[in-house]
């Protein structure tokens, strides 16, 4: 029996023109793991909030939600509090008390649990979640990942039947996010707790989901097993394809292309240009294959396709079979392909150039002084504290898109802050565009030279509307009112926030906030743009847009230094990648060499194709090698 039955739910916010939820029906069977996905703003949060009366927003509702066979409204507040566990997105603001132990006990205190039971439950949860070591800590001392784990444990202490999670990993780094999702899975598998999770990190949740429900504009567009949904998405060329696990994406592109008669079909050949070089793989790939023939009717149903792989392991099995059955003449992509502006091999064979220029030549600018030149930079936050930077040497040529990868606490953000002059290294030298950082005057430095986009874009917005916020950046400049408007229009267009200018920055979605913050930063007209994890918490579609925007900037000669955990994004779009470890830059290489050297810290496509292909680091690499 379904634990939750959502029956023809329609909901409108007061004053809204169209409903946020439209005639939505969904069953969540007891003990299942259900993933809710969809682009930001499609109504995921609104739907989830209808599953607990105290969180349900005000507005006009039609249809009903049944919990355990009863209308939710008839289930008492006490029962709902205990049986329906809710974890929200913001790890910080969800925490109520100041101590870990108190937070764990908070829900039980509210339920009026007696001290003995409470002690046992809290002890149990602390042990199960492995948080007994920080049981007595202040919550302020925890990392974001630990905070979110604490929120989960605090909810689990009440022993709920169902866990509802609203994008719980949006503000976590990838490692913490994986840990968190692994814990959620463990709860589902070991305790049988039903899980209903809205998540955009589909690679992590797809393989384990029983049901995936895709939401579009307030309705469930597709609901089914992960494979079904994956296939349906690829058939319909939904932009959400970009969020699917890489093995599934590669499989879909390769297997379906085959059915469509690749590469003999002239229209099929025409496609490869876009799909190999284009910035938005999912989109262009699928748009491309759409034109190739009647998709959705034949290929998936006719039994010629293997089972779709959801994990890297499955992907390897499939790729092994694929390679065994064929004589593939080229098994490697030349290491230096790309950054010299050369054609990618598979494309080259078919006589096509790397048209979109995913990686641009930078050699032409070799005589210019480097945009960033750090030599043996040492830094620590206090005299007694350990060194954070231990001899960082880094050189970024002008016009390059450089990414700085590395684990937590390796000093990535510190490097950026040293470059803005906010932190002063105690040894070593830092130069920007050929002159020493200390010789730059502050007003020169931040007008037209350096600007940094912080990790939390919201820290930049200080007014009620985006327009005012952008205007704030021009307050010191000697410009007439018209010029100001012009500048704002210009940058808004570049960052695609023109339609959002009158909105409150806090009301924008994660991806919109990121672009709006970027617009604000760009008003200083920086030659060197520093980005601190800009892809955190934004969905795959926004990521592609961001990449596009960054590309436009580097085309205009802006140098970009980006700190990131996002291996996939860096592999795909960066000119060069550097690894920061233990306070120093360990290696700097073009992404292809950088990632194909690594065996763990690399992209899913690379892990999947290792041993079959060499130097294949992106989906397109693998697809092109498969389909040569």
């Amino acid at each position, binding site marked *: 029996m379904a634990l939750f039955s959502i029956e023809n739910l329609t909901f409108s916010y007061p004053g809204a023109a169209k409903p946020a939820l439209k005639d939505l029906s969904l069953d969540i069977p007891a003990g299942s793991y259900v993933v809710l996905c969809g682009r930001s703003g499609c109504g995921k949060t609104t739907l989830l909030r209808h599953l*607990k009366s*105290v*969180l349900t927003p005000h507005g006009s509702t039609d249809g009903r939600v049944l919990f355990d066979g009863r209308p939710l409204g008839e289930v008492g*507040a006490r029962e709902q*509090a*205990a049986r329906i566990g*809710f974890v*929200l997105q*913001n790890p*910080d*603001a*969800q*925490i*109520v*008390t*100041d*101590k870990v*132990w*108190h937070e764990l*006990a*908070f*829900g*039980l*205190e*509210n*339920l*009026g*649990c*007696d*001290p003995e039971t*409470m*002690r046992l439950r*809290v002890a149990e949860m602390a042990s199960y979640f492995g948080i007994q070591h920080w049981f007595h800590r202040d*919550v*302020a001392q925890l990392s974001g990942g630990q905070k979110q784990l604490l*929120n989960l444990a*605090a*909810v689990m202490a*009440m022993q709920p039947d169902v866990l509802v999670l609203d994008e719980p990993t949006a503000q976590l780094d990838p490692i913490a996010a994986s840990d968190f999702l692994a814990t959620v899975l463990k709860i589902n598998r070991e305790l049988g707790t039903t899980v209903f999770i809205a998540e955009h990190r589909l690679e992590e949740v797809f393989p384990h989901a029983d049901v995936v429900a895709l939401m579009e504009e307030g309705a469930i567009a597709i609901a089914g097993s992960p494979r079904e949904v994956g296939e349906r998405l690829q058939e319909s060329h939904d932009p959400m394809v970009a969020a699917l696990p890489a093995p599934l994406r590669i499989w879909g592109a390769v297997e379906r292309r085959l059915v469509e008669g690749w590469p003999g079909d002239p229209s099929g050949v025409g496609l490869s240009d876009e799909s190999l070089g284009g910035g938005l793989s999912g989109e262009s790939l699928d748009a491309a294959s759409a034109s190739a023939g009647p998709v959705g009717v034949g290929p998936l149903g006719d039994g010629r396709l293997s089972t779709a792989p959801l994990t890297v392991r499955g992907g390897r099995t499939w790729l092994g079979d694929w390679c065994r059955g064929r004589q593939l003449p080229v098994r490697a992509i030349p290491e230096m392909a790309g950054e010299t502006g050369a054609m990618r091999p598979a494309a080259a064979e078919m006589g096509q150039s790397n048209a979109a220029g995913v990686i641009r030549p930078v050699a032409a600018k070799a005589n210019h002084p480097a945009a960033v030149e750090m030599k043996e930079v040492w830094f620590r936050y206090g005299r007694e504290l350990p060194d954070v930077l231990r001899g960082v040497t880094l050189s970024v040529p002008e016009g390059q898109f450089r990414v700085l990868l590395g684990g937590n606490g390796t000093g990535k953000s510190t490097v950026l802050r040293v470059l*803005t002059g*906010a932190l002063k290294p105690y040894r070593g030298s830092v130069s920007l565009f050929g002159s020493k950082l200390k010789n730059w005057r*502050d*007003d020169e*430095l*931040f007008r037209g030279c350096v*600007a*940094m986009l*912080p990790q*939390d874009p919201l*820290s*930049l*917005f*200080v*007014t009620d509307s985006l327009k005012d916020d952008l205007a*704030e950046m021009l*307050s010191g400049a000697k410009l007439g009112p018209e010029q100001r408007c012009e500048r704002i229009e210009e940058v808004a267009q570049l960052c695609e926030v023109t339609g959002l200018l009158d909105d409150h920055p*806090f009301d924008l979605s994660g991806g919109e906030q990121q672009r709006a913050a970027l617009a*604000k*930063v760009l008003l*200083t007209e920086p030659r060197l743009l520093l980005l601190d994890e800009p892809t955190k918490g934004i969905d795959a579609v926004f990521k592609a847009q961001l990449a596009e925007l960054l590309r436009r900037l580097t085309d205009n000669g802006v140098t970009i230094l980006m700190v990131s955990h996002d291996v996939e994004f860096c592999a795909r779009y960066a000119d060069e990648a550097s690894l920061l470890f233990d306070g120093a830059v360990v290696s700097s290489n073009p992404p292809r060499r950088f990632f194909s050297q690594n065996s763990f810290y690399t992209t899913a496509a690379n892990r999947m194709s290792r041993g079959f292909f060499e130097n294949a680091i992106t989906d397109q690499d693998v697809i092109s090698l498969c389909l040569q």
Partner: protein
Amino acid sequence: MSSFESFHPLVTFFFFASVIVLGVCFLNPLFSAVGLLGAALMHLRTRGKEGLRLLGGMAIAFVVLSLLNPLFNPAGDTVLFTYGPNRPFTLQSLVFGMVTAAMFVTVILWFSSFNAIMTGEKITYLFGRMAPSLSLTLTMVLRLVPTYRRKLRSIMDARAGIGKSGATGPLTSRVRNGGALLSLLATWAFESALVTADSMRSRGFGLAGRTCFAAYRFTLRDGVLLAIEMLLTALCAVALMTGATAVEYFPVISLGCPTVLFWLALLSYVSLVLIPTFIDCWEHILWRFSLSRI
């Protein structure tokens, strides 16, 4: 880490309440010195090396406050020197200044240790049962201040990255910058308060019959120590109320004739302020002793 911390909050709270109140009430130089010494020792034990900074500041405050008093109060017979148009600087006034300065410094130092040991959770544990929702509010407020401070820090860092640090430039732009910061902080605080409220309601806050998680147990050793503290405090209080510790400063300093009660109170006060130190030493000895046997 002082082992005094490991006692039940009631015991530690009573200790601080007692020494702070007594520290303010005693105006006897001997008692002041004892209080000052105890407070300084405790402060150093709880704050470690970091504590030296506050202690240094307090030493300066002590000197300044002591020297200031004779400037305002020329009473007293023993003139040390005169200044200005024949205004005397007297020994009695100086000593009185030192006693009041010691009182001030003592209280500050006790509070510094109090803050380190009586964490928010202990306070709410003690007073929570009288008013459960009040205690929760207190916990949340205690958490808000450092949270806001951290957020402000991160906003300032973010703005420094686009050249709007507000640390430089003309006054008008700095003021504008400060205003912008505060408005952002307010918006942010409001947004996160909404989430917190959701999180609380979602976990059943507001249901009838809220209970409190008891993180502390009152054991025999807590009982014994509490009894000792009460006894010592009572002795001091009796001495205070009967005037056994009274001192006359003007025109000449007179400690009166020390009675048995006076000595008893002094001994009690010394024992009381040194309780945490005693306990630490005792545990230290125990530890050494038990280690040597392992």
